[in-house]
């Protein structure tokens, strides 16, 4: 008798324990009911000071905590949406802008948001002692560059002025019709001057204000920052548009591993993921298309050619290499997330700018060109290397391209993968033959893609230099007429695609999983989803 009781007792204990562990209600269900958005946010943010950071995960969090003059529209990134500024007016040629800050704009400590706060913030961005990484975004302001480089020491000479408490006047270096689009970027966000001063002042790089006293003006307030665990923000009751905000909290979870994120989503621990491993896409398309989202994204994946290394200085060689890349095969079979084979450099989706339709896969022509360049069937072609940073998809693409060049052109290239912080200097010092690269636009204007290819630009890194192109870019920066400007942009990009210092491969998409209950999360080219429009539908 006794002998059977004990095991039975133990067994029942085990069952009770297991039942206790079993979750009848998943975290996402509880959270949805309570208005808490559980958001997979990629890697741990390196900081939350809008003037210090450069990354996408940081952007997701900062845009909940702070708001600029103009903010992101809920559905279309081309449109400006009033933020701190109630209204704004450009002068005739778009070179001077006046912003009227709304009366009910306040910081969450009760202070009103003033025009002088923006002057302070932009001075901080441009301060030569501070070292903001996006400072060059503000070079569009008159004398901004000179101040940043220390050629001017008096900030009064920089083209930003608080006319009164609520009126801000900005003078730019030239006509800039897309200025409102630039202003959405977090580098233009204000910070609370009193708080920044309290924590060591404007130029303090190791300031702890974001950690200890995050004074914001956005729809949410910082509640908790547990590094590598979670960042919790709660709805602000001082935000001017607070009635529109429907979420009570957002939990940003730093999940750097895409497979973990997918498991978390499946296990009901996230409403939204940051990404989805390519291998999973087909599965979701087939079984759970309602949670899979594939949105266009303002980014280009491309290969750089080092123009200083023969035979890559020969345009025919570059063309042959670019034409021998079967981009369709790559997006269909490797990336598999609806990416678009890039026929130009600037991705589609910006109003008034049709992407170019120039760079096509053409193996026959590629062979001819290579022969014309003196390497019939690849004979005598020197050994070249494709450099890429270590990552599964980059590796798969590089292997595919290596194989395409081998079978189509008969040339052998080797592959070289480097860890990120080795790869970046290799690229920046032009210590490579051919290098994988990508560019994600900062704002909705082709110039964010095209200005980097001017001679000696810090992001050019190919050695390509074309005076006509440089002149065009300068002309674009002085052109006040939007139509003429677009024409000039097209002309510049055509030169780039004719000279081919780069081979565009595909235009990005954002692939992620979304709980069907989450509403107001529209496809956005810049992947900005204003949280005040996000809500849960309870039936989902």
């Amino acid at each position, binding site marked *: 008798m006794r002998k059977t009781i004990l095991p039975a007792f133990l067994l029942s204990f085990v069952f009770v324990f*297991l039942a206790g*562990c*079993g*979750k009848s209600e998943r*975290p996402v269900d509880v959270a949805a009911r309570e208005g808490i958005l559980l958001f997979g946010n990629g890697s741990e943010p*390196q*900081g939350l*000071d809008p003037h*210090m950071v*450069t990354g996408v995960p940081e952007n997701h969090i900062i845009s909940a905590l702070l708001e600029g003059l103009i903010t992101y529209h809920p559905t279309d990134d081309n449109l400006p949406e009033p933020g701190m500024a109630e209204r704004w007016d450009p002068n005739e040629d778009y070179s001077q802008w006046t912003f009227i800050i709304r009366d009910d704009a306040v910081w969450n400590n009760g202070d009103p948001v003033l025009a002088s706060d923006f002057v302070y913030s932009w001075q901080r961005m441009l301060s*030569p*002692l*501070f*070292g*903001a*990484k996006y*400072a*060059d975004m503000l070079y569009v302001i008159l004398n901004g560059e000179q101040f*940043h*480089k*220390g050629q001017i020491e008096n900030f009064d000479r920089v083209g930003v002025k608080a006319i009164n408490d609520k009126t801000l006047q900005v003078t730019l270096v030239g006509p800039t019709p897309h200025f409102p689009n630039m202003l959405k970027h977090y580098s233009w966000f204000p910070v609370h001057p009193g708080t920044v001063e309290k924590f060591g002042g404007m*130029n303090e*790089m*190791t*300031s*702890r*204000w*974001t*950690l200890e006293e995050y004074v914001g003006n956005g729809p949410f307030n910082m509640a908790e920052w*547990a*590094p*590598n*665990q*979670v960042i919790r923000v709660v709805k602000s009751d001082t935000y001017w548009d607070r009635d529109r905000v429907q979420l009570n909290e957002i939990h940003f*979870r*730093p*999940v*750097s*591993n895409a*497979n*973990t994120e997918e*498991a*978390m989503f*499946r*296990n009901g*621990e996230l409403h939204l993921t940051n990404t989805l491993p390519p291998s999973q896409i087909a599965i979701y398309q087939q079984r759970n298309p309602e949670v899979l989202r594939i949105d266009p994204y303002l980014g280009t994946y491309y290969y750089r050619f080092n123009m200083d290394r023969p035979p890559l200085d020969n345009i025919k060689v570059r063309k042959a290499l670019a034409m021998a890349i079967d981009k369709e095969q790559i997006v269909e079979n490797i990336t598999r997330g609806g990416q678009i084979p890039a026929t130009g450099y600037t991705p589609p989706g910006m109003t008034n700018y049709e992407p170019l339709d120039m760079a096509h896969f053409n193996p026959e022509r590629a062979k001819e060109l290579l022969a014309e360049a003196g390497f019939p069937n690849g004979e005598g072609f020197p050994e070249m290397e494709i450099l890429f940073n270590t990552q599964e998809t980059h590796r798969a693409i590089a292997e595919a391209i290596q194989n395409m060049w081998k079978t189509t052109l008969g040339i052998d290239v080797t592959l070289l993968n480097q*860890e*990120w*912080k*080795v790869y*970046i*200097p*290799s690229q*920046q010092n032009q210590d490579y033959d051919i290098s994988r690269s990508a560019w994600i636009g900062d704002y909705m204007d082709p110039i964010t893609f095209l200005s980097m290819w001017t001679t000696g*630009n*810090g*992001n050019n*890194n190919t050695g390509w230099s074309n005076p006509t192109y440089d002149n065009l870019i300068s002309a674009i920066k002085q052109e006040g007429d939007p139509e003429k400007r677009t024409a000039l942009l097209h002309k510049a990009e055509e030169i780039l695609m004719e000279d081919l210092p780069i081979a565009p491969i595909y235009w990005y998409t954002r692939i992620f999983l979304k709980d069907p209950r989450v509403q107001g999360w529209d496809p956005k080219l810049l992947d900005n989803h204003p949280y005040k429009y996000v809500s849960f539908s309870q039936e989902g």
Partner: protein
Amino acid sequence: MFKFICNRLLQAIPVLIIIITMTFFMARLAPGGPFTQERNVSPEILEAMNEQYGLNDPWMVQYVRYLGSLLKGDLGPSFSSPGRTVNEIIADKIPVSLELGLLALTFALLVGIPVGLLAAVMKNSPADYIPMTGAMIGICLPTFVLGPLLALTFGIWLGWFNVSGWFSPSDRILPAITLALPYAAYIARLTRGGMLEILSQDYIRTARAKGVPEWKVVMKHAIKGGITPVVSYLGPAFAGLLAGSFVVETIFVIPGLGRAFVESALNRDYTLVMGTVIFYAVLLLIMNLLVDIVQVLLNPKLKFEEA
């Protein structure tokens, strides 16, 4: 014994200095720096940042300054999380890693040693082959396979656990098991090997011949010598459990030291690299000291001067 410990602690000082010095210069020799990023930073900005963090000074100056603040217990500011200090970051993570590491170690020992003992005693029987095959598979199954498999089985299919986070007590179970299993397998193998060595020794045979029961032979006489290799292994193993849990921490989204260890090196966060290396070195030295003490206690023939 007291003298022995003092002696070893004294030895630790030059060891630490060498480790600190080598790491300091190695980190700076590696290509890329803390501010290297894809979007090009203009030389002026880079200059300003280097200036504020004192990276423009000659290395020797930086080194002396670092040693100076180290003596005061200050590990400096982190480069990759501006505003935070390395002391703060490491102090934040130690409790997490300690908990995870101890859980995993306990589990590994509780599984590894009995299995190894049983296998040694029942040599060349199914009780040997089956667990040893299991152990070998445990070793062959890398954490990045084991972790997702456990998450899939016990998280998604059975719904018993969350597959991420470090919030509730049940969040500890899957990561601890994932981390422990390969170590358990190692320990089982080493225990078996060590026991076999001892079980064939003369004094064991003598004991058996005298009619001492087999379990007593194993548990009283053999085990002390038999687990010597395990004990030697435990020093580095425990340090590894604390600092080498990068993969487990990444898979289960745990804010532990393992990630700080790897990511600081990849980010070229010089001060955090130094901080984690110093922490690891101290831990390792202490663990190895403990191991050497235990070894003497297990082997009465040894004296402390020799250990």
